[in-house]
């Protein structure tokens, strides 16, 4: 009945190829997904090792988590991270507080306010900022932010260790997470249904009223996603921060002009070691870092839910 010259042999071949290809695709997916598990297994495994009995130079988990000193130079060395955690969180939050409003306003400006000619320019600025690698930020921070901070400290009658300070870290991180939050905000603001905007304008709202009342409200969830991503970057940033942190050896830092120490800078210090406690303890910090990031994400989600009121979901 059919006139088409369809070969049954071809169809069998087609089927077999299909099966093989599917298997290969599945395998790739599995490999990619397995990585996170492997990271946990290997990093945590190595990190816990330090607290296990039988480990040479075994550390006490309680001291590690609650102490306020990091003195690998002492004998026996003292490793404790509570103050580091506190410093990490203060710097990251400080950066977020500085950066978040600016990012959102910038994003709004770029998408909705800027004259058409300037829009591309500003977008490119943000994209370039996002593309700059962190070491370059580090060089910049070590060379100029530190100078700025030490001058500022001078005005307040304070002194700094060559500008390396908590404030420098905060400013550096603020600059670094700015493009992250901004570009996500741009995406979510730009993807707000144009009909909503038209709807608002048609109700006699002015442009700016529309932007602040309707656009930002609608883009909320994307903007918060940007914040979470930015904070993640602030927590995880290592090389640049190391260049301006100053690596304080004890106690949480509350003075903006005092040096500080974050989880990542700690992990990057004392690189010459390749075995022993001093080496393995970095894995423990890695675990702590991941836990901190996880908890912060949860906290932000909670905050978002409570201040969000009406949500998009």
């Amino acid at each position, binding site marked *: 009945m059919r006139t088409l010259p369809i070969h049954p042999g071809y169809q069998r071949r087609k089927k077999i190829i299909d099966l093989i290809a599917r298997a290969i695709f599945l395998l790739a997916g599995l490999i990619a997904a397995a990585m996170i598990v492997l990271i946990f297994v290997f990093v945590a495994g190595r990190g816990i090792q330090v607290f296990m009995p039988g480990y040479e130079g075994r550390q006490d988990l309680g001291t590690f988590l609650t102490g306020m000193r990091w003195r690998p130079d002492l004998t026996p060395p003292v490793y404790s991270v509570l103050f580091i955690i506190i410093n990490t969180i203060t710097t990251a939050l400080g950066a977020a507080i500085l950066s978040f409003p600016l990012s959102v306003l910038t994003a709004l400006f770029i998408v909705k306010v800027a004259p058409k000619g300037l829009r591309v320019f500003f977008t490119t600025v943000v994209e370039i900022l996002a593309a700059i690698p962190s070491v370059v930020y580090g060089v910049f921070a070590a060379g100029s932010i530190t100078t700025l901070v030490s001058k500022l400290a001078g005005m307040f009658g304070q002194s700094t260790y060559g500008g390396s300070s908590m404030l420098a870290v905060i400013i550096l991180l603020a600059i670094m997470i700015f493009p992250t939050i901004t570009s996500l905000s741009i995406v979510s603001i730009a993807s707000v249904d144009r009909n*909503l905007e038209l709807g608002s304008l048609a109700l006699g709202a002015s442009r700016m009223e529309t932007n602040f009342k309707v656009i930002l409200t609608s883009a909320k969830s994307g903007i918060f996603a940007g914040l979470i991503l930015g904070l993640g970057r602030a927590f995880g940033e290592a090389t640049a921060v190391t260049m301006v942190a100053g690596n304080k050896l004890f106690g949480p830092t509350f003075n903006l002009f005092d040096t500080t120490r974050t989880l990542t800078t700690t992990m990057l210090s004392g690189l010459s070691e390749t075995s022993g406690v001093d080496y393995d303890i970095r894995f423990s910090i890695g675990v702590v870092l991941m836990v901190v990031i996880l908890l912060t994400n949860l906290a932000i989600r909670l905050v978002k839910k409570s201040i969000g*009121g009406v949500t998009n979901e």
Partner: protein
Amino acid sequence: MDARMTTDPMIESPQTEPQASSELDVKPETPEETKPAKQVRMPDPKLDPNSPNVFEVRDLNLYYEKFHALKNVTIDIPKNHVTAFIGPSGCGKSTLLRCFNRMNDLIDGVRIDGSITMEGQDIHSKDLDVVNLRTEVGMVFQAPNPFPMSIFDNVAYGLRCQGIRDMKKLRVVVEDSLRKAALWEEAKDHLHRNALKLSGGQQQRLCIARAIALEPKVILMDEPTSALDPIATAHIEDLIEELKKLYTIIIVTHSMNQAARISDKTAFFLLGDLVEVGDTSEVFHVPRDKRTEDYISGKFG
């Protein structure tokens, strides 16, 4: 009588001498009167604020950059009636609709000439505040577009933009608007639920309520039901029937059946031309123009 389709090149120039424009004018010899500059800027003396028409469009031409989207359109929109715009895709229906609340201002490269007056006032004049115009001329869009806020906030939005903060007043207006939009019964227990949780038809009614809250004179609707299923569509159509007692409604629709069902007047457009306008029953029963006939009976050429 209420729709002139012929191109009348005289309409823009003053047809009467300034001296004759009003019998109360006792000083025909004042220097202002004789200044030619003044004469050019004078409003058309024929415009009558008490006319039965809300809008009078005269020789409107609209260009998108080079593209001539509306050609010499002259049409009157009668008060408290439903006027439907029909025509094939791209004929300029939405474009004309957007002229009435100057939403075309938002599109770059739009050039307009000819005049549109709303109750006698030129809506393109410098004195007229666009934002105010838009509170007087509400608009409902093709896809329901409630703001991602609560139902209450959606309806109160326009009022709050006007600086009204008094909750008591807001509550009264919100209830009233929802009632008029036939949504009160369904929504009264969920006023603070997210508007996006409503069904498509309810969302569209919310959008109508939102426009009503500002007590507009006119409501523009651009294919308000094309995203809805037949039942939700029927609800909206019933609502329009109710609303026309209070408001003037202009509706663009792709569905000739819908235009037939709900409108009092129908205007048929083709490639930017207003081909025919008249009472809906006339247009659908004895259209005057062969092109209208062919279009509404679903055949072309």
